[in-house]
């Protein structure tokens, strides 16, 4: 069974929140991956929904391109919406 494909597991901790990556596991197919994920990652009441995705189906950015891809926004704090005065009476923006 060690040659079973690798799956990435995503758990939604509560309704309204997004699924979040929590780890990975091996399973023969999607059905078994969901069962295994339930047992490996929700046994401490972590979630209300599970997604599993074949690790091979995830396309990742190239870590060698980190500078090229991610250096530019550093130092450009003006892109954050933190320079606007909050109108009185507005609790959250």
């Amino acid at each position: 069974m060690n040659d079973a494909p690798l799956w990435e597991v995503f758990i939604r901790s509560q309704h309204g929140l997004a699924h979040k990556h929590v780890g990975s596991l091996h399973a023969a197919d999607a059905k078994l991956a969901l069962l295994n994920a339930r047992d490996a990652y929700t046994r401490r009441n972590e979630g209300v929904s599970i997604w599993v995705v074949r690790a091979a189906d995830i396309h990742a950015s190239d870590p060698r391109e980190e500078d090229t891809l991610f250096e530019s926004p550093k130092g450009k704090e003006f892109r954050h919406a933190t320079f606007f005065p909050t109108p009185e009476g507005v609790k959250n923006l």
Partner: protein
Amino acid sequence: MAMSSEAVVARRERLLQLADSNLILAQQLTAWCGHAPMIEEDLAQANVALDLLGQARQWYRLVCASEPEFGDEDRLAMLRDVAQWRNLLLCEIANGDFAQTLVRQALYDEFHVVLLTALVASSDAGIAEIAAKAVKEARYHRLRSADLLVRLGDGTSESHARCQRALDRLWPHVAELFVDHEGDALLAAMGVAPLPSSLEETWGQAVGTLARKATLTLGAVASARAGGRQKRHTEHLGFLLAEMQFMQRSYPEATW
């Protein structure tokens, strides 16, 4: 609700049969911890064991609440010898290979769901309450064991042969699940718990469907090798208890 002494005994014997079966099966499953074919399965089986252990504790507490002379859950679990256990013999048969453990689990899970589903409607509020929570866990156990049994039964020739061998080995012990014992008719009449024999048809249909999917052949209805409720056991139980109770026997009253 005031119960007759006859009903108290019947209720206790029935609850101990269920609790003891759960606890013995939990102990069997935990023996796979660190040894299952893959780590995901290892963890899953330990989870099932913990569910069964937790349910056994609830049933023991219910017994002790109405009959304080039984002490507490720890005493029931750790200080009774072979001749005081009421568990189904199916649960005490040695694990064997992974196929035998799995086949036993699938047979028990189907039974457990059918029984707990009936107990949810018990006229005894304490029983109904525990059953309502337990049945959800049991449905998950069944989902997992049935899925795996279909995969392995209808898998390679090796996995199929192992599953069929396990089924043949365990089949003589399934008849005991549906044997009506003294007091069961009274409990059924009071709406406390269903007659064991009344569960057989539903179970038989579910197991028949599962076996077909798993390409396994069920045995003929064998003569019932019963005995759990009469506290007569196979040679397996003594070894299991020796291991399970070692700590409490060697260091009486030890606590965490």
